[in-house]
């Protein structure tokens, strides 16, 4: 059972948290036209590395805040915890972030407002 250092509440048992899966999946804006294939990469395809994985967690039973976490899926070691909206700072975390195929995906490109903006 993991011990997770919530940035707000400190060390707590894993049972107090919920895991939101892969982090840094940018949501394509519906207005930006994407093929069904490219959209399915956003919707269903998931990074599932054996090694460092960037994922997001929420301290559900505590402060209810979301945060990002870099975790080794073999040893379960938590390498880094960093705020929502930021990218990892550790070397391992950075590498995992940059190496991810998603950085080059069409869906990610479509997450930024294109011609029209939403609002």
């Amino acid at each position, binding site marked *: 059972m993991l011990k997770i250092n919530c940035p*707000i*509440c400190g060390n707590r048992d894993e049972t107090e948290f919920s895991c939101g899966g892969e982090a840094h999946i940018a949501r394509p804006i519906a207005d930006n036209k994407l093929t069904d294939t490219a959209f399915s990469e956003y919707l269903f395809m998931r990074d599932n590395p054996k090694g460092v994985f960037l994922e997001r967690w929420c301290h559900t*039973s505590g402060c209810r805040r979301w945060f990002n976490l870099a975790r080794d899926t073999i040893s379960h070691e938590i390498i880094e915890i960093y705020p929502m909206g930021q990218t990892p700072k550790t070397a391992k975390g950075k590498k995992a972030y940059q190496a991810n195929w998603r950085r080059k995906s069409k869906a990610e490109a479509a997450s930024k407002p294109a011609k029209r903006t939403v609002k």
Partner: protein
Amino acid sequence: MADTSPHMVIGNSAFSNRILPIIKKPESLKTPQIELSEIRHLGKLNIRCTSKTRDMVSKLTQCNLSLQPNQSDSKAGRIALCLGPDEYLILAEQGSEIQLKKTLNSSDIVKQIAVTNVSDALCALSLSGKKVRDLLAKGCPIDLHPDSFSKNQSAQCDLALANVILICLEEDAFICICRTSFAEYVLDWCLDAGFEFGISASAGI
């Protein structure tokens, strides 16, 4: 607003279906070592605000909100808790939360904050006695050792299968806040877990 009526001062009990007091204790004990009761006359206000407006809110509520998350401060009969970077809970005398809410909502910062009366959504239980930490340790995974969890500390955490807020008032006195729909579960759980030390649950005030 709907909750501004003077009628609000009637007590709020989450245990309308239960007949209290209940005492559970081993035969070997004369008196229970844990006391549980509901604090019925307590207004509860949830406040969301950022660091920009926090001082203003402190001023208007006469509560010290310059707290770290999981800290509490009690002053003039009010307890303020910091639940997160932008979230606070104020426990105040029954009825005064209505006034507080009104004050906040008629201030300049009304657009930047959210004030919600949760007096009836949450139930406050007072738990005290020399074995109270042992009782909580049966269901609460956080470190309850007096070195780590002392006066004025609070925690949002799990107690068995319920989500609660624990506030440490004294070495052996706590407030446990839970959603009212979970109150009976929490009571039943405490009664069962408290049997080892002896527990008396009373209706409270």
